[in-house]
């Protein structure tokens, strides 16, 4: 059971990215209006904008939070060929009363010659490090050696991908069993370009990042890429947003079998491929434990994917961007994503991320029922169902629950929706 809430973001142009902080209590949005807004969630569950400022001189493509161990830090990247790191300054008391906070720019990373398309912080166990990728096909890794001094960042690595990059993802696993890994996706549309997703791995001996794998089967432009959090698995899971949703597993091949000192070789398997969006898939995002994947597409919907205990992936929920119910079986590949009527300045941005909506906060990641049904209790009686039936009727395996609405009249024994803990 899902409930959608819309937030009037007041951005003056398309919103390109939404990012939640580590605890799910703060949110950052960035837009083509060149600004970033930071939102805080109050105790009552409402979102208030606590900061809004101009960050770049071009569209801001992505915004991301650093781990709170480093304080309140944001990074943004833009069409203006720069990426920037921002830190929140504890304001004056009257600012606090007004519920406003200030963010100051700590550094600008100007090495790129083209639009910077993604910026992501590395997992915290690697220190304060971030990676950017640009349209010129170069991934740059920066590090701030002194975490208390955010103005000093040094360029540690430049990785050449040979294709215009659109997205990157760090492998969040902190296991010492494998070295740091970055996945890079490309949306290069030139006809010669082939595989659009690559994996780079850090080599302790050469102290450089080297290409470990290319996902040969991914030949369409990649819009987003995301490693799943690792629950102690020996293999990695990678989600890719391209013309459909794809989930790959990467099993490291034992070192003895490969030439020692080279990058790890992986056995790559595709474990799921879903074209339910019937259109370009723009974003993919994992929940905390890496058990649920959310994808958003040009059909204006967010879909949730989950594997059952037999490791079969299935769709377990569909959310429509503007909160309206999803109709029956046919999914029109809509080229005109629906506009939220009560959010005048927002448009469902081209990349399909549910702009300004409840995108995918970490704590609120849709797990079965109880989280969302607690919402149903807090809010007035929920609108007609937002969740469609499961996409595949496979009776052989245990289904992830998807509540069906029935109008039941018998007093004691019916099983209407949810609303249960």
């Amino acid at each position, binding site marked *: *059971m899902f409930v959608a809430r819309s937030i009037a973001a007041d951005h003056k142009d398309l919103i390109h990215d939404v990012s939640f902080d*580590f*605890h*799910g*209590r703060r949110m950052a949005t960035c837009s083509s209006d060149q600004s970033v807004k930071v939102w805080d969630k109050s*105790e009552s569950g409402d979102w208030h904008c606590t900061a809004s400022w101009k960050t770049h001189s071009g569209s801001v493509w992505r915004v991301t939070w650093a781990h*709170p*161990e*480093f*304080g*309140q830090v944001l990074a943004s990247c833009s069409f203006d060929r720069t990426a920037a790191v921002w830190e*929140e300054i*504890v304001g004056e008391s009257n600012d606090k009363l007004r519920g406003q906070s200030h963010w100051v720019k700590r550094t600008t990373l100007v090495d790129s010659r083209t639009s910077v398309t993604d910026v992501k912080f590395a997992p*915290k166990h690697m220190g304060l490090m971030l990676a950017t990728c640009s349209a010129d096909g170069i991934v740059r890794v920066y590090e701030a050696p002194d975490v*208390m001094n955010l103005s000093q960042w040094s360029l540690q690595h430049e990785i050449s991908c040979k294709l215009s990059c659109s997205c990157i993802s760090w492998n969040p696993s902190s296991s010492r069993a494998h070295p740091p890994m970055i996945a890079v996706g490309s949306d290069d549309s030139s006809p010669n370009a082939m595989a659009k997703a690559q994996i780079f791995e850090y080599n302790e001996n050469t102290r450089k990042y080297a290409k470990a794998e290319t996902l040969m089967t991914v030949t369409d432009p990649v819009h987003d890429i995301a490693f799943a*959090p690792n*629950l*102690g698995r020996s293999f990695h899971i990678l989600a890719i947003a391209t013309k459909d949703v794809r989930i790959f597993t990467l099993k490291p091949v034992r070192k003895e079998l490969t030439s020692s000192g080279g990058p790890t070789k992986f056995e790559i398997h595709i474990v799921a491929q879903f074209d339910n969006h019937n259109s370009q898939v723009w974003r993919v995002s994992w929940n*905390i*434990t890496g*058990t649920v994947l959310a994808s958003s597409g040009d059909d204006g919907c967010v879909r949730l994917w989950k594997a*059952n*205990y*037999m490791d079969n992936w299935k769709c377990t929920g569909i959310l429509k961007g503007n909160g309206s119910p999803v109709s029956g079986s046919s999914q029109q590949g809509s080229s005109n994503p629906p506009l939220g009527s009560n959010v005048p300045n927002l448009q469902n941005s081209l990349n399909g991320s549910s702009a300004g909506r409840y995108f995918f906060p*970490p*704590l*609120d990641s849709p*797990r*079965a*029922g*109880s*989280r*969302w*049904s*607690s919402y149903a*209790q807090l809010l*007035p*009686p929920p609108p007609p169902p937002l969740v469609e039936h499961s996409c595949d009727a496979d009776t052989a395996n*245990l*289904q*992830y*629950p*998807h*509540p*069906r609405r*029935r109008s*039941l009249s*018998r*007093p*004691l*024994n*019916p*099983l*209407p*929706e*949810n*609303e*249960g*803990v």
Partner: protein
Amino acid sequence: MEEMHQVAIAAKDPASGRQFSSQVSILSAMELIWNLCEILFIEVAPAGPLLLHLLDWVRLHVCEVDSLSADVLGSENPSKHESFWNLVTVLVLQGRLDEARQMLSREADASPTSAGMCRILGDLMRTMPVLSPGNTQTLTELELKWQHWHEECERHLQDGTFASSPHLESLCKIMLGDEAALLEQKKLLSNWYHFLVTRLLYSHPTVKPMDLYFYAQSSLDLFLGGESSPEPLDNILMAAFEFDIHQVIKECSIALSNWWFVAHLTDLLDHCKLLQSHNLYFGSNMREFLLLEYASGLFAHHSLWQLGVDYFDYCPELGRVSLELHIERIPLSTEQKALKVLRVCEQRQMTEQVRSICKILAMKAVRNNRLGSALSWSIRAKDAAFATLVSDRFLRDYCERGCFSDLDLIDNLGPAMMLSDRLTFLGKYREFHRLYGEKRFVDAASLLLSLMTSQIAPRSFWMTLLTDALPLLEQKQVIFSAEQTYELMRCLEDLTSGKPVCGEPDPQRLQDDDVETTKVEMLRLALARNLARSIIKEGSLEGS
């Protein structure tokens, strides 16, 4: 559940009333399923007792009879009450024949014409053979007796004993297990499983578990009569009658939006080792899967996460790592909550999580300039680097303002002081001030000296320390011994000789240098004087 029922009835607005009612429905449905699973899967009642259990089950869950009974009996003239016969019928349907007999005797008293019939029917009710617990008769004996009794009832019906009273006649038909008669009472039965149990009671009391499904299916079909299709609850119950545990769990998962019920049911079945025996080789995986789902859901709640912790503890494979991932993400809105979370981690030796959470809190404190709080969090995190950083800030504050903040904390560091050199220095330095305040000058003096000679003090702080030594040097009595004074002088020389001359001195630097030079000169003077006095003191006969 009773309470919720009351609240639902008393609800002021229809919306919340509906909400409460639906909650009650869900909970009663869950209880219904749970009890049935207990009877079929866990008790594994054999033929004979099986029916008794099912009867209990129905009686427990179809309970309108109690309110009906209260209504009727509470009225002035029960047997004339409009629902009297309904009540008697329901009692018969539920196999509560003693109570039904009592009702009939009231009717017999009230209307003598039917007294005879009532008595006969009452006798039939009394003599119906039932398997009572502890009864030593075998099933075959019971069957035989029951067969005789059944035939006797049949005879009465054929003879038309009850012909003049349609009520009594229909009761007799019910007791003969006549399907048509039973179906006439659909409203009183209210659901197909009641119909099933009544039917079994009066036609196949020694039903075997494996035959249950057949009867259940036909009961459902007959009851619904093709008018409506089975509801999810019906499917679940049917799966249970089929002894298909897997199907039960699957249907429950689909129908209920919440993992609570299936997680607990699966867990129970797993503990009874039923999941394996029912050929679910992935049984314990499924149990853990469901428990993990349920616990994850709990973590999204601001206080129920504590329950989630316990559930994760019972998941042997992925519980710990799931807990590690979830517990870090709990927003720490208050210090109390933070302490609770930390306690959970510490109890489970999740040292990395403890470190991380404390670091986050320490960082927050530093940013808000709450140095004492930051220090205590870094100590708890055993984060030496951060403790050094915070101690530096403390010292810097002292230099600027001339006093310490958070004295309590620094005074009571105890063994935690050893975490980092800088922290130790901070603690000791504070101790020096304390000693000075208590006028224990000699102790203070030696502490001060040891701070410098033991290299704990950062070089940048030496000047401050030496300046602190000034008042001690200026005291009337000699505090520093000659030896100590030599040491101090050496430190001073170390400090001043290390100063490089670089570039063009600007006016500010010159001014600073001036201040510096003055200080150094004062120190040199004081040290020299002290040296002189101490030599004299040590050299003379009284002093030692």
